[in-house]
């Protein structure tokens, strides 16, 4: 029966739409449309990440189905991810982006505080946007993808070399440092800051008030870390030298977690 050809499953990370891979695409479309109409009040105005799962879709099909979701619900759709490997009721595992185009993130550890939230934490959405954006951009380079246009791609400045004591780098966009940031050096970015080396200076991401910005470094040891309008530092007891970490805002606080 076609009734089970489209199944919605929600969890704290988003909504997964299971698509039957055997029925005809047109039937699938019809089913999805129907289910969405029936469920639109249920979803309400939430912002959610939608995952299509279970069926290979062409770009065109993906676009159509996305359009259906957007049109039939008030859901604010952030992006679409297809083909994740595993799904469990309370956790999703994505693979980390590397050159083979796999996406990893194990949300189990970091999500312990968010069990009550239905909505996906803002920071993680923004991170996913930027990471996924790289893959879907790659996939769709010959096609204009509306999703990509809607994602805010910031300008990124790539700085090769280290920043010494006394140097200050400000940029109206994200910053990637291929080198170290020594104590006494300063980075001010409207967007995100990534240091492919040791971060020991002062960093301000998301200047002045972009709560979605993050800071990441291979050796994360800043003198002081600032994101948007929050400032903090790592107290001596919690300092771990030479560990890769990232910092982001969650619940109006700056969180630092292992990469």
């Amino acid at each position: 029966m076609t009734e089970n050809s489209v199944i919605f499953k929600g969890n704290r990370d988003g909504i997964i739409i299971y698509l039957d891979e055997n029925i005809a695409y047109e039937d699938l479309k019809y089913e999805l449309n129907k289910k969405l109409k029936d469920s639109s009040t249920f979803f309400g105005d939430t912002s959610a990440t939608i995952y299509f799962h279970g069926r290979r879709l062409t770009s065109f099909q993906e676009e159509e189905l996305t359009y259906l979701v957007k049109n039939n619900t008030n859901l604010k759709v952030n992006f679409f991810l297809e083909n994740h490997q595993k799904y469990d009721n309370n956790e999703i595992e994505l693979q980390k982006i590397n050159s083979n185009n796999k996406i990893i993130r194990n949300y189990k550890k970091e999500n312990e505080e968010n069990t009550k939230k239905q909505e996906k934490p803002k920071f993680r959405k923004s991170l996913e946007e930027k990471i996924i954006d790289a893959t879907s951009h790659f996939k769709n380079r010959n096609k204009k993808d509306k999703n990509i246009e809607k994602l805010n791609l910031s300008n990124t400045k790539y700085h090769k070399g280290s920043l010494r004591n006394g140097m200050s780098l400000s940029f109206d966009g994200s910053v990637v440092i291929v080198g170290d940031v020594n104590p006494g050096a300063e980075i001010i970015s409207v967007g995100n800051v990534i240091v492919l080396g040791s971060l020991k200076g002062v960093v301000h991401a998301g200047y002045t008030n972009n709560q979605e910005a993050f800071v990441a470094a291979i050796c994360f040891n800043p003198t002081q870390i600032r994101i948007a309008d929050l400032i903090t530092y790592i107290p001596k007891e919690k300092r771990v030298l030479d560990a890769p970490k990232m910092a982001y805002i969650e619940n109006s606080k700056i969180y630092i977690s292992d990469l």
Partner: protein
Amino acid sequence: MSEVIVITSGKGGVGKTTASANIGMSLATKGYTVALLDADIGLRNLDVVMGLENRIVYDIVDVVDGNCRIKQALIKDKRNPNLFLLPAAQTKDKEAVLPGQMQKLCSSLKEDFDYVIIDCPAGIERGFKNAISGADKAIVITTPEVSAVRDADRIIGLLEANNLSNPKLILNRIRMDMVNRGDMMTLEDITEILAIDVLGVVPDDESVIISTNRGEPAVLDIKSRAGQAFRDISARISGEDVPFMDLNTKENLFDKLKKAFS
């Protein structure tokens, strides 16, 4: 080809003046003609460390103001005819000289000397700017202390921004007993942060204080280990390939010679 080398550090008290005196004296001993230039106007010290303080008649400000010729201001060292000192002024301050004037002065000195060694004042203001304006190369001195290394990093940044690329490092006053206990940073710790080539490492040595007391640079004392380190550094500056001293032994050159002849 003449070279103007500025010896700088950022932080005060890490050994710029000592290094300038010893490197200058040592290069002169090797046969090179050397002009030492004290750029610390208002707080002159190179004259005292060299033991030439009562021979000062004219100083750098007199030269720059045209009150005398360079040759009148240069003090010849009685121990070595290759070595001359151009003292700083004591009654003026760093505003008395402009970077352009320093550049001109260094160009003139280059005509008559193989090496011009400039003792840079501490800080990053006018004194520093003056001192580097005539230089071809820079040496950065630091001690193995957090504050000194941090300032050295700043200085390196400023040097590189002023076309004095590839400054060389002298790590001064290292104490191997503390290093071995883990209580002092090592050369590797410091080069990891500063990321510049190493010219030499100088051990903390009482003989440096005694030599300053007398106004006799430590390189003239065969028993001084710091003196030996500075002699090696000068050799490297002049192009020789000298292996680094073994800092873990307490032997000095005198002991080694004794051994060799016993």
